[in-house]
């Protein structure tokens, strides 16, 4: 099922839709360039996160707590401590996953998993500040300037359109990294992700890139 999306898209040939008639003004371009410049100095990030998921499948909101490690250009580690232990490490185009239930490591190619691809690509862009690369997939609007808040709405012919209605990204006052992300999904579910205790440009322990290591 993981490659279904990618392969199906080949067969869904409709009339051309101009994806580039972007209404992005000079202001938004300047803002994105400014953010990219500001965040380009950040080489590593380690931060705690609190993820609040409102999913129709559950009676209540699910709150996940964990840690994120990022090292440019292509390392990302996503480690959930509660309510269940789960870790995911991305190296280049491959992701390795582990969870405490199965206690097994599973490897998946990013290109074969559009769900992961969209999620990971988004995370990379948020933390790396490479927002300009998202203009192909999203219409980006500046909601507030101080502190900066950006809204991302997928273009009509973007893959993200299948799952996401809107993403709102809130920045810290110093604009060096993001404070919170809110995702509204197409099926009515929503997720908010708050980052706390962020440490920039600190040496990240090698164990962070080992998927089955102690996730605490």
């Amino acid at each position, binding site marked *: 099922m993981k490659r*279904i999306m990618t392969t199906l898209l080949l067969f869904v040939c409709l009339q051309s839709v101009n994806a580039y008639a972007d209404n992005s003004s000079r202001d938004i371009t300047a803002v994105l360039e400014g953010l990219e410049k500001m965040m380009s100095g950040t080489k590593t990030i380690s931060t705690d996160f609190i993820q609040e998921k409102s999913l129709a499948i559950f009676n209540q909101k699910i709150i996940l707590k964990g840690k994120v490690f990022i090292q440019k250009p292509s390392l990302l580690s996503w480690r959930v401590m509660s309510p269940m232990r789960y870790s995911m490490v991305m190296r280049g185009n491959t992701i390795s996953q582990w969870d405490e239930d199965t206690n097994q490591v599973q490897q998946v190619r990013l290109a074969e998993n559009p769900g992961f691809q969209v999620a990971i690509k988004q995370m990379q862009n948020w933390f790396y500040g490479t927002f300009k690369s998202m203009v192909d997939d999203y219409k980006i609007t500046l909601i507030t300037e101080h502190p900066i808040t950006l809204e991302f709405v997928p273009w009509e012919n973007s893959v993200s359109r299948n799952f996401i209605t809107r993403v709102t990204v809130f920045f810290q006052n110093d604009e060096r990294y993001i404070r919170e992300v809110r995702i509204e999904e197409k099926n009515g579910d929503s997720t908010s992700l708050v980052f706390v205790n962020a440490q920039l440009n600190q040496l990240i322990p090698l164990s962070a890139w080992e998927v089955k290591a102690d996730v605490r």
Partner: protein
Amino acid sequence: MSGDYLSRIHSLAQKRKGAIIGFLGAVIVASIIGLKFIKYNDNIEMMLPQNAAVQNTMRFLREANFSDKLVISLKLNDESHTTQDLILAGDGLAASIKSSSMVKQVINNISPGDVASEMIAFLKYAPQLLGPEALPKIESLMNPGSIKERLKFVYRQSLSPGSSFLMPFLRADPLGLFSGILRDIENLSMSSGYDVVINNGHLISRDGRHAMVIVKTPVALTEGFGARKLVTYLRGKLKTALPKFVSADIVAGHIHTVSNEDVIKKDIQLTSIIALLAFLLLFLFFFRDPKAVMIFLAPFAAVAVSVNIACFVFKNLSYSVIGMGTVISGIAIDYGIYVYMAVRKAGNSQETIRQVIRPVIFSALTTIGIFAVFFFSSVKGYHQLAFFSNSSIILCLIFSLFILPHFLSREKNPASNFAALKPASPLNSKPRDSLCIFCWAAILAMMFISGTGLRFNNDIAQFDGVGKEVLSAEKDFHNIWGGKAMPAVLVASGRTLEGAYQNNTNIYQAAIKKIGKDKFASLSSIWPGLNTRKANALRWQEFWSTESENKIKSMLADYGRVYNFSPDAFRPFFQQLHHAGDWEVEPEGFAFFDHLKEQYVVKKDDGYQVLSFFPDEDKYITRLSAVSNGYPGAFIVSQKNFSNTVSRALGSELIFLSLSAVFLTAALTFLLLKDIRLSAIALTPVVTSIIMIAGVIPLAGLAVNMSCIIASMIVVGIVSDYGMFVAYYCKHKFQTGTYPAVTFAAATTLIGAGALLFARHPMLFSVGVTLVTGVLSGYLSSLIIIPPLYRLWIPEKKVIQDETISLM
């Protein structure tokens, strides 16, 4: 021919010389003008047998959905430009080519639509799609242990970073009952074999440096003129609409059509020029007689006239047949040479003509006979070849016997240039003759041994003479986009769409038993025939009794409580449990289904075809051929299988044609010589040529193909003439310049055939190699081997007796 007739024709031609010149001149000028208006056809079907399997395949290829598409592969040449720049360039190109009537649709931008929702919605057909084998599996899941395991899985997936994509599927199928259907959709979609990434709705390569634009056209693949117009149009647009940092290659069957036509046209021009120059040099250097130019011009004029006549009869002429023009000229010129040499040697009298008319007519008859047997072939192109060749030969023969002599000098003129071509003395010593024959036998034995290594190449792709630049572009294309190993296709047919679906389903069920489901991509896996779907749905309804449904509902609720699943968590699953959809109605509103249908279903004038794809390997073709044979209208299309089918069909036909040709040659030789031993000796060049061709082809690193076999038959016709003439000379000793005549006849044929060695088109080249080997060895054996054989085998006394009888 009786003396009276010959005298009458001779004197009539003499009296009407002026009128004949005028008439011939007018016909030739009209024919040359007519060449400009000839319609040529390079459709390969013309060169294929009318065998049912071959015709099925060709019809399928002609009418298949993919035959109307051209792919343009765009490439970023400049590192400083991005994929975004490439996409914009692709959009610009697409917009610029849309306007032409030769372009039906341009696909460069695809919308993903709401694929996830579509797939979830498609699961409503699950009751119709899941066969009897699915129910025991479902039953095995209906226990607390399995349910708990699945719920844990759903919970874990819900919390993973990529859960947005998975949620709708997890809710619609918490037990994973329908994962097989989703996997089948994936397999079907993947069977295109191309490695494409969707970037912002565009078809982009994995490296982000290439983009794909698909052009649909109403211009048929095999329509030479239309294909050229379309390719020229697109190439023009590529030049004007693309920025300099983007280059483009067109990959399509239309390019092959145009390229093959270009190669063959260039070959015809090149070989004609080489042949013309060589003929001119030969005649000017050896004959040194302005009148000899007539012999040289006659076959070209005959070919020009014959092309027009053939076009009148066949409407369209095959380029491959016309490509044989220089060879035909080389053969047709022979009769003029025989007459010319006789007249120069013995003077222009009716007696001279009488002495040569018999061997000339018989030699023409053998060649005409060889070509005539091609009329018995089922290959339309061979009919054209036979008609075109025989028409040229007959015209040349008439010209040589009845018109040419009146334009030559009446005096004897034994040319000094031909002195070297005097025959060996018939009174040569026996030991020398024996040595000569021994050497010949030894060479033939060596060639026979070499011939045991002969390979047969039945791949029809070898006749694709497409240019290097096209092959290079295709290699690059496959490196970037994959899709090189194209699958074989099993075609199921039906008069109605539903009938075709049901046949496809029956075939699918048999096929997966033979080669496994993984190897057989069939639309039946996601949309079986009505009978199958109806039976599945009824079985499903019976299985999902209220009791079963309540049992699952209760287990999901009970064991899901620990994960805090909501009461509605799996509502989508239960909603579709009893919604089997309308059996009679095809899925509507599913873009992915529509596009799969476009790929897998072909609408025909007389019904429908449903395609299934599998690896093009012998083992699968063999197993699935056994399946397809059991279903009327079903057949397999595969490159490998097609070559085998064609070679099987042509092979049996060619055996018949070759045997007919050899029998005809032997019969005509006997009719001329009226002596079995002499006839056997006269056939020496035929035997020599066949063995030499068989020996030289493997030595040259080549393989035998259909063209070689046909060329070998033509060789039999040509070299049997040499054998007849030399044997006739040995018997009658007429001083009509036989040796120089045979030599020049061979030289001109070799020029015509040798010119083909410069051809780029593989079919013409292999014909050239076969003809040169056969004619050269046949010529040498007729001059060197026939006289010693004659002396050793036929006593002089008997010859004199026979000569007396023959001259009566």
